[in-house]
């Protein structure tokens, strides 16, 4: 006797990854925590208030816009929280609280939601907001202090030709924005992201290597390790390379494209730091890189299997 077998055939995909937007964003938040905690401990309670203000206002902006436009609420995917946290980490520790709040609203509403929400924005919202604030409030955005004493950032000191203590830069006991000073904390977070498979090392490594090479060739200091490590650890490069440049939405999806993008960012950062008027250049480099992502994807799109030589994709690919 045979039994009636009930066989089911379902449409693909059959294998599913457990990755979801909220899981990835949760991982990014966890990875940013060491830097955030270090920033709060080192810079004091006001830094905590700045982080809190930027996160809460980012969530509020997302909620208000989506309610107002009668769109689906996407607060639970955590992307607004990541934007707010990244923006807060990019603020000087003694900034008046209304500036990060304004920045969060700009990031969420103008840069992200007006272009269609998560996945549609062509620029990293947190960085675009940082540049918006940097242009608007140059004075307040460039006054750094530790324990109420105004200090210059390591990059500014290096530019003046002074020597900086590399161990201090690595640990983060120096001036700068809340989240960028401690390379150690940032690397811990980056290691967590790599371990969880959230980011690949392609963009950060090609970024950092090409930046170092560019500095070696054009800064006029040759292979002066003291200078190169100062440039590497002293500014926003670690935060930018590991956490900002690797943003899924605003970085290329092709592997070769990611390498190219990293190299481009390294060169741009080098140009801004060496020849620009400000000692820092990571934010501008990354948002200019973001703008070029559609072109990078277009020239690095691999051929589908069996179609022969690679052909340039006719239509603009997704940004």
């Amino acid at each position: 006797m045979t039994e009636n077998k009930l066989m089911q055939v379902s449409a693909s995909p059959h294998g599913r990854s457990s990755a979801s937007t909220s899981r990835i964003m949760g991982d990014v938040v966890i990875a940013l925590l060491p830097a955030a905690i270090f920033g709060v401990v080192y810079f004091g309670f006001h830094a905590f208030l700045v982080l809190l203000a930027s996160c809460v206002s980012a969530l509020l902006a997302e909620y208000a816009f989506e309610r107002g436009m009668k769109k689906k609420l996407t607060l639970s995917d955590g992307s607004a929280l990541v934007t707010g946290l990244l923006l807060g980490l990019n603020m000087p520790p003694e900034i008046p609280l209304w500036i990060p709040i304004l920045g969060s609203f700009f990031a969420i509403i103008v840069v992200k939601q007006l272009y269609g929400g998560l996945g549609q924005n062509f620029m990293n919202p947190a960085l675009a907001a940082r540049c918006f604030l940097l242009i608007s409030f140059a004075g307040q955005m460039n006054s750094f202090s530790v324990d109420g004493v105004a200090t210059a950032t390591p990059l500014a000191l290096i530019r003046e030709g002074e020597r900086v203590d590399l161990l201090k830069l690595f640990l983060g006991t120096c001036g700068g924005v809340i989240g960028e000073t401690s390379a150690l904390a940032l690397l811990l977070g980056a290691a967590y992201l790599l371990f969880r498979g959230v980011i690949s090392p392609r963009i950060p490594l090609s970024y950092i290597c090409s930046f170092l090479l560019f500095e070696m060739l054009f800064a006029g200091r040759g292979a002066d390790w003291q200078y190169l490590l100062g440039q590497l650890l002293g500014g926003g490069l670690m935060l930018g390379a590991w956490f900002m440049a690797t943003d899924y939405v605003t970085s290329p999806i092709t592997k070769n494209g990611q390498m190219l993008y990293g190299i481009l960012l390294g060169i741009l950062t080098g140009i801004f730091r060496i020849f620009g008027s400000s000692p820092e250049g990571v934010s501008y480099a990354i948002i200019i890189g973001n703008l070029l992502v559609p072109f990078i994807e277009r020239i690095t799109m691999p051929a589908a299997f069996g179609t022969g030589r690679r052909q340039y994709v006719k239509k603009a690919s997704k940004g």
Partner: protein
Amino acid sequence: MGACRERLYNGVVKENPTFVLMLGMCPTLAVTSSAFNGFGMGMTTMVVLALSNLVISAVRGIIPDRVRIPAFIVIVASLVTIVQLLLQAYIPVLNDLLGIYIPLIVVNCIILGRAEAYASKNPPLPSMFDGVGMGLGFTLGLTLIGMFRELLGSGGIFGLQIIPERFHISIFVMAPGAFFVLAGLTAMLNRLKNRSNGGAGSGGQGTVCGHCGGCGNLLCSVSREEPDHLSGASDAGKGGSV
């Protein structure tokens, strides 16, 4: 007189050159860093526009069709020169503020556009009112943009300070601010217009994707039987017998 009033309404509201036709973007973005600059630029353009429409309409029968563009340019350039000399003589402040953008009125798309689209085909009086209407619409647009940029970027309206300097968002008096304000105002006006047109095109599309999870069960749950059972007739439920 009805046609003239209609022209004014058309220029200010229906075909507003700044927010609807999107013409003359160069002065719109460049000189509107304050409300007064925007207003001055708008009024200057309006004078040129009204006079050029009047003159072009008056001589429209004489100008041969094939050389009409150069002829229009000559007329407009002469008028702009006159206006610039008058400004230099009587309102030197405005002349200094607007600078190169006064001679550039010659190549303003609105002026050539109205000459080509309206004045070269219609009698002088409505043409002049068309120019005045367009000019008023342009002035309104520029003044509005200038007001918002001045308020946000340097904390005042028409030079009157109302926001302390600490809170000035200075990006708004720079080039990016012009784009932000223009885009924001255009979006707001479109929204108002859509609403007054009975809500056509407004609101979310509500494109909710259907629940895709169910398709596996719907399409594919086909129970199969052994081939020899297929021959066994109607009482298939029991699974046949040998």
